[in-house]
């Protein structure tokens, strides 16, 4: 243990004294406060805060990721290339201890730097409202829609497979099936049609969604939605009458103990909007229903995209959410540190850096890349899905666990989601990389120059 610690502290000293970390440190120390003043967003307090947190955290995360890659690779590769390892590894230290020491050093440095920058960002964010001339309304908006952690309830896609089967059979019997299209494709098309129908409301029609286990902490909660329309209205705006309350009242019209929200709103189409609903409409049993009536004033069918309706409510504080988001960044850094250590055990410095940067940027867009495979023609996608897709799936999904994705819309990053991320990203993927690194390093010849 003492030798691991000796290597770790030496790695930190190396990073700080070789000025690699110093450059990143100064860059962030200068940039963060500057961004605190210059970020304006859409002019409102909320917009300003969102812009700052978004850019501040993204920049911190990106720079620390790069720093982690560079330092973890440099500290091992330079020891091998400049041969300091000759005198270190011939001391009573096992090879795995050497690597663990390096890893511990990099992670400790990350923890120190990350906490420093997290404190800076947090402080600037918290004190921005106090230093600015803001209206009371802006503050309330910021408190409700930014300084909070809102849980989001979504609606699962409706199961329409039986409906689709029936329709298909009917078409088959009446011999109306198109000849040149395969069965799977017809089924897929029918499914899309049916699901769209479930999310569409004709003029005067009502759509009802139900949400379970709603437990808002604050005074108000939010319905977040996006309209799509069949025919564009003249001013691109539509009227909608929104209800929210006990599901029994909304569905069956029985007596309700809690008040029912009922109001007409005018909103533009194809944009996300939020309407604030007082939290006391939520019944005691937490089973909430939200209903939408396509107002007769509209002249078009209104439908909601698959992710077009959500109920948001405050489930935790901003501070708690911020802490978890910072931990999320730390997991990312730990993974990259293991990746860097692995690369440096069998590659020289420049090659290892290149490999890690490629993998890092791939992991940052992994969701997009994987999705794009599904649009390829079948023959090619078979090849891809057994090669590149496998590799990409081994990488963590940095875009899915993007820190700003949670803080900017004040989404709750729950402990359970965080734990899941930790389990996959750190306990499985990073650990496997480390294991591989230890194996390679334990069996390779130290004195051999690597290319």
């Amino acid at each position: 243990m003492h030798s691991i610690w000796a290597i770790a502290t030496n790695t930190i000293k190396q990073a700080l004294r070789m000025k690699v970390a110093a450059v990143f440190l100064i860059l962030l120390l200068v940039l963060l406060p500057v961004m605190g003043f210059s970020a304006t967003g859409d002019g409102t307090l909320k917009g300003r805060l969102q812009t700052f947190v978004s850019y501040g955290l993204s920049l911190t995360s990106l720079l620390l990721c790069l720093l982690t890659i560079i330092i973890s690779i440099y500290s091992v590769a330079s020891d091998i290339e400049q041969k300091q390892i000759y005198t270190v590894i011939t001391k009573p230290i096992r090879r795995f201890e050497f690597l663990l020491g390096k890893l511990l050093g990099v992670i400790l440095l990350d923890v120190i730097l990350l906490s420093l920058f997290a404190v800076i960002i947090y402080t600037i964010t918290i004190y921005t409202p106090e230093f600015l001339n803001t209206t009371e309304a802006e503050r309330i908006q910021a408190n409700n829609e930014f300084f909070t952690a809102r849980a989001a309830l979504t609606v699962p896609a409706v199961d329409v497979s039986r409906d689709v089967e029936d329709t298909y059979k009917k078409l088959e019997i009446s011999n109306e099936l198109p000849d040149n299209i395969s069965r799977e494709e017809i089924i897929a098309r029918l499914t899309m049609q049916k699901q769209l129908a479930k999310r569409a409301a004709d003029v005067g029609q009502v759509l009802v969604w139900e949400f379970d286990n709603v437990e808002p902490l604050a005074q108000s909660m939010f319905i977040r939605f996006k309209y799509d329309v069949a025919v564009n209205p003249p001013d691109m705006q539509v009227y909608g009458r929104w209800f929210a309350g006990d599901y029994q009242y909304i569905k069956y019209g029985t007596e309700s103990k809690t008040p029912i929200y009922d109001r007409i709103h005018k909103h533009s189409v194809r944009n996300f909007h939020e309407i604030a609903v007082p939290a006391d409409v939520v019944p005691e049993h937490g089973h909430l229903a939200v209903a939408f009536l396509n107002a007769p004033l509209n002249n078009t069918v209104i439908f909601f995209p698959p992710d077009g309706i959500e109920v948001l409510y405050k489930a935790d504080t901003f501070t708690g959410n911020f802490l978890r988001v910072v931990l999320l960044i730390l997991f990312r850094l730990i993974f990259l540190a293991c990746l860097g250590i692995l690369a440096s055990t069998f590659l020289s410095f420049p090659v290892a850096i290149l490999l890690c940067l490629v993998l890092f940027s791939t992991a940052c867009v992994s969701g997009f890349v994987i999705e794009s495979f599904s649009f390829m023609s079948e023959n090619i996608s078979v090849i891809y899905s057994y090669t590149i897709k496998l590799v990409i799936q081994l990488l963590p999904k940095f875009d899915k666990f993007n820190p700003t994705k949670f803080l900017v819309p004040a989404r709750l990053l729950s402990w359970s989601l965080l734990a899941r991320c930790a389990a996959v990203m750190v306990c499985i993927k990073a650990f496997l990389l480390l294991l591989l690194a230890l194996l390679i390093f334990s069996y390779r010849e130290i004195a051999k120059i690597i290319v």
Partner: protein
Amino acid sequence: MKYAVETFSLTKIFSDWWGRAKVYAVDDLNLQVRYNEVFGLLGPNGSGKTTTLKMLLGLLYPTKGRALVLGGDGADPKINSRIGFLPEESYLYRYLSARETLDFYGRLFGLPAKVRKMRIEALLDMVGLMAVANRPVGTFSKGMARRIGLAQALINDPDLLILDEPTTGLDPIGTRQIKDLVLKLAERGKTVLLCSHLLADVEDVCDRIAILYGGKIHTQGQVRDLLQQTNKRQITTDAISDTAIEKIKQLIRNEDADCVVTSPMDKLETFFIKTVAAAQQQAQTTSGAVSTTKIGDFLTRQTVAEDILDKLVSPSGVPRTAPVSQEGSPESATTEKVVPVESSGPQPDEQLLSKLTGSAELSQPEPVVRDEKVTTQPVESKAALQEQVKKNILDQLTGRSKPQGEDEEQTDKLQAGDAGDA
């Protein structure tokens, strides 16, 4: 465990990426280094010396055969903790200062902070880098880096010291010092394996040598047996009168043998050391290493308070009988006693200076090479005399020990006692 280092047909073949173009770096090497001896591995560049050492330490894996170091695997931490290794160049972390470097290596051995601190100071003092201890190692000259490399190899008070070209880049005083150190360690029962192509260094310190060429051993044996000219005798005397010489010549002619009489030349090494001694007496400042002849206390002491030290330091070998050791010890013991113990000044340089002048004032026997005093021993006797001369001059340069407190004084006495015993 008969041998400190033993290899069994050790072979290392370097091949290219395709596994072709084979180079036999080391070929079927059977090396035996006994406990408690100074073994020299000689050979021209590229003869496989360094490759052999790397295989001993587990930095390279042998293609065939195996190596035993201190009865075990050279990559085993238990064995490593008893080995000191100085690679062919001092590969150091450029951003660490000299003191931090030693501290780092000390921590790898898990030495407690107190022991570490004590040893670091002793080693810095020994290699003469006390004045630059807080400078980054990256700014050191090659010789200075070499000194830190050596200090690094000694921090654990090793039983087996493996030195790869220990004297490259060192000035003659440093070279002399390393040779003294090697002898001193050998005297204390340590084993030293050194590889070099500087034959003068090897000749002075090694008990046995092996000459490598093309990865194969070509000669192996005792230095004396290999070098001694059994058909010649040499007599060294103090300055004696011409009549005496005539008498001796007559005697030799009676033996029916030839004889040549000359005044022996100083070795350049001796001359150099004298010159630097003079410069140091004039208190010329230097930004480089300060030459000392000190050897770390913990390396020469036998009874130590700290428990870990006890284990590390306890004499593991049999009392040494090799002739080389006998040359050095008595002289060093006496000179140590002669040097005055002065109160320590605040600045190391001042301290050094005061001691220099102090020892100059003392009526110490001036080391002058004279031509009288007949000795009958063959080869070694001359070496012994030279040894004494060098030692005296070196002692004069800096003083045998730098007293820093009561502890140090005690150690000096101990040291002197030990040397006397041996």
